[in-house]
């Protein structure tokens, strides 16, 4: 049964030709950005060895660039940046809280386990 007291949000998503042009321009800009980042990552990865003293910086650089790429995908391609604030933060905040906690606990635990192996032996 159709209900006329509910708002059909799907219909709000339409936009005009001019707006479309603007959106497409933004999409192509993001495409170029993501491609350039990936190319830079691959070349740095190929030329800088993991034994080199700059590697730790390169590694953190990669991680930051990854988060950078990810936020462009989520905010532009998935339109989360255009959604209502309540929706945006309901998705992002619980996720980040949980994941940061999990990363912390896993790395901390891995150090402890690594220590235990080197102290008490094992193959």
């Amino acid at each position, binding site marked *: 049964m159709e209900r006329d*007291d*509910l*708002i*059909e*949000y*799907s*219909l*709000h*998503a*339409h*936009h005009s030709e001019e707006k*479309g042009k603007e*959106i*497409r321009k933004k*999409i*192509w800009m*993001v*495409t170029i950005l*993501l*491609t350039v980042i*990936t*190319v830079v*990552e*691959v070349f740095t*990865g*190929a030329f800088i060895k993991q034994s080199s003293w700059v590697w730790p910086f390169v*590694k953190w650089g*990669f*991680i930051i*660039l*990854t988060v950078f*790429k*990810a936020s462009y*995908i*989520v905010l*532009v*391609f*998935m*339109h989360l940046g*255009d*959604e*209502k604030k*309540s*929706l945006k933060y*309901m*998705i992002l905040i*619980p*996720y980040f809280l*949980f*994941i940061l906690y*999990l*990363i912390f606990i*896993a*790395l901390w*635990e*891995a*150090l402890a*386990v*690594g220590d235990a*192996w080197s102290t008490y032996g094992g193959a």
Partner: protein
Amino acid sequence: MAEHSPKLDSKTLWGGKESPFQTSYGKLMMWFFLVSDALTFSGLLIAYGFSRHDAQDSWPIGEETFNSMPFLGHGYPLLYVALMTFILIVSSVTMVLAVESGHRMNQKGVVKWLIATIIGGAFFVGSQAWEWSHFIHGSEFGKIELSDGSQAIVKGHFGEIDNFTVVEAGRHHKKGAVIKDDLLHEFQHAAVNGKINDDGMIRLHDGSLAKINKAKDHEMKLIIKRDGSKNKVGDTPILGKAAEKKYYEAVYAGEKNRVIYGANLEQNEYGPQQYGQFFFFITGFHGFHVFSGVIINIIILLGVISGTYQKRGHYEMVEKTGLYWHFVDLVWVFVFTFFYLV
């Protein structure tokens, strides 16, 4: 996009009629699903990080493990994975263009960009199949166990095997016969089973004994990946003549499992056992997502072509599958960094 929605006061907003998120039920549920799926992938990648952090130097390095291109051979560190990443990003772009066309009710545009997305996705799945096959079959050298119990991965150019000359007849091959087929496969099979002796004689499947005629290897390098009584992880790699001597000592030892080729769920030639398992599970789980994404896109494409959404007045179905498709790309960005780059 919510910016088109009318502004409402908070009483109406939370009064039940209006969604506080000002978005449709379908899209909201897609976001819920994606958050839970993101948690699954994060769990897997963090578990991977745990093992890696724990194993330190014995863990394989991405650009050493993945350096092959289809048809071109070795020596292209990470280039193929980068290409795969690029293909997936582009297919994400074509998807967002399909969604944009949908917002202008441009049916032809949606069809065009959706087909492009499906082709990109199929390319990616195909590339992953190639990569799996390459990972499972392994390199020509394999990984060896040295005499002190340490393990080393082997880099360099493997000299081609010209033929086997039979010196002792078996059930199938006669004495003096020259075998030219399936050489590398026979060689690796015999090496794993300890069927090559230190004179360079190989015991073939049918019981015949043959001499291996093989070109010289070049620039061989042994990198220790497991501690032994003498060699330790992190030692400078063993090069040249010394490497060749140690390598053939292991391969021609006539002992089982002194050399490992490729990967399965129990062992692999790249590093610790967990490495192979994580590779299969994480890239497999992601590949399965891409595969189902391609199938879903095809179903939606059929809906677009038959005009279902044009009649409905909006292309929200394309937007929802689009969300899923971008998510698959998003996960790959992380897999690429943590599995291949760092």
